[in-house]
């Protein structure tokens, strides 16, 4: 460790990127798959929480609160260790990551969606119903799209958070950027170089996502 006081090894820094890029593919796949699952589940949970039936509302609320009030690292470990012990079902680390993060993100998104749906004036729904639309059509054609653009900034924040939080899957040996980076550091002892390369990798991927979301909001935000 003392030997590592001699400045920055540019070669080691440069050669970190090829393996990290493989990890980046996993990070992106995890983020995209979790989001693709979490959006419809989040919408479903939001609608259940807006249901007229008290029992349905209570169950959905309870489910969401459990996922919101516990740390995602614990959720990951719980699905990894406890779920197999309880049910006998053992999932691959990748599937554990998908299940735990989808549970976590869909709970957060459901809150965002619920607020977004509630922010649309009830008269908009009534106008859709008055045109002979069914309640489902009113939601899909009129209320949902308006709520979607309204919650886009919050949604983009959740997206970028998820992208970064997926680093936690390294704790259950899913080969994402963090797992590969931390392995690389252990093997080469190039802590400074590898961690800097990891940081640049996350930044290079995360920054455009955040900017894209900003642009979407400016471009498509609903003006009334």
């Amino acid at each position, binding site marked *: 460790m003392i030997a590592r006081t001699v400045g920055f090894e540019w070669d080691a820094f440069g050669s970190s990127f090829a393996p990290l890029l493989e990890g980046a593919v996993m990070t992106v796949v995890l983020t995209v798959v979790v989001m693709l699952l979490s959006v419809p589940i989040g919408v479903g949970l939001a609608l259940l929480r807006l249901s007229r039936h008290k029992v349905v509302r209570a169950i959905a609320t309870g489910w969401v609160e459990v996922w919101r009030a516990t740390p995602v690292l614990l959720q990951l470990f719980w699905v990894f260790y406890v779920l197999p012990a309880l049910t006998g079902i053992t999932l691959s680390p990748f599937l554990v990551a998908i299940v735990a993060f989808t549970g976590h993100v869909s709970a957060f998104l459901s809150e965002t969606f619920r607020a977004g749906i509630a922010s649309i*004036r009830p*008269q*908009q729904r*009534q*106008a*859709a*119903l*008055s*045109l*002979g*639309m*069914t309640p489902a*059509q009113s939601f899909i*054609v*009129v209320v949902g*799209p*308006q709520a979607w*653009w309204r919650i886009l900034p919050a949604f983009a924040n959740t997206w970028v958070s998820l992208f970064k939080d997926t680093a936690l899957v390294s704790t259950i040996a899913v080969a994402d950027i963090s797992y590969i980076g931390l392995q690389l550091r252990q093997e080469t002892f190039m802590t400074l170089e590898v961690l800097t390369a990891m940081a640049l990798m996350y930044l290079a991927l995360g920054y455009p996502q955040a900017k894209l979301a900003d642009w979407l909001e400016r471009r498509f935000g*609903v*003006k*009334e």
Partner: protein
Amino acid sequence: MTDSLDTRKMAMSGAEPLVLLDGISHAYPNGKVSLTELSFAVHPGEVVCLLGPSGSGKSTAIRCVNMLEPVTAGRLVFEGIDVTAKDVNQVEVRKRVGMVFQNFELFPHMSVLKNVAIGPIVSLKRPKAEAYDLARELLAKVGLSDKGDVLPSQLSGGQQQRVAIARALAMQPDVMLFDEPTSALDPEMVGEVLAVMRKLAEEGMTMVVVTHEMRFARNVADWVVVMEDGRLVEEGTPERIFEQPRMERTRAFFGKLEEQDGVLPTG
């Protein structure tokens, strides 16, 4: 004299009412009673105006007709169907009832043309090309052919309300309900909306209009219903109601309007 003023063309012709409110009551979930045993009829081709002070239940009454508010007692019959029956298909009834809201309620995320076409496309499963053709026709009818591609937010209030009327007409409804269609408008825009409504009335559209526009009621309505505190005060032809109101409460209502706005429309 009074009798001849009070004859109702449509009723005399023996036509069945298109809409019949038969002793309907309504209360909000908080228990506040908004309608008490209200009855009146709307015949095909008639323009019926509902007048009365704010909070008298006029809006609630027409919202009951397309079931945006549930009737708690009484019968509400539309085209011979009791829409208060448990098994009534609300969606099918609403397809035949057009509604125009006080605050327009255009869909802000759709172009003006799509706002008008969306009802037929989604509810009636019409081919898109056909629905858009009809929408263009209706926009022309309300004098906004050049505004099809813009968003509602780029239109004035009066223009938005004309689009809202076109949107309701696109469903080719059997009756049009207007819930204070000019109350949210700047005074200089009221005229253009009333002109469109007047044209509709002349074409024979059956209309139920909640309004504070006394001149419109006087000149366009076939039948006027005066309400207060969720009850019917009196009903009659506009000539009779405006010239010989029988009830003290009608006179008091007109008196208040006169204090606010100057003169009542006559003749």
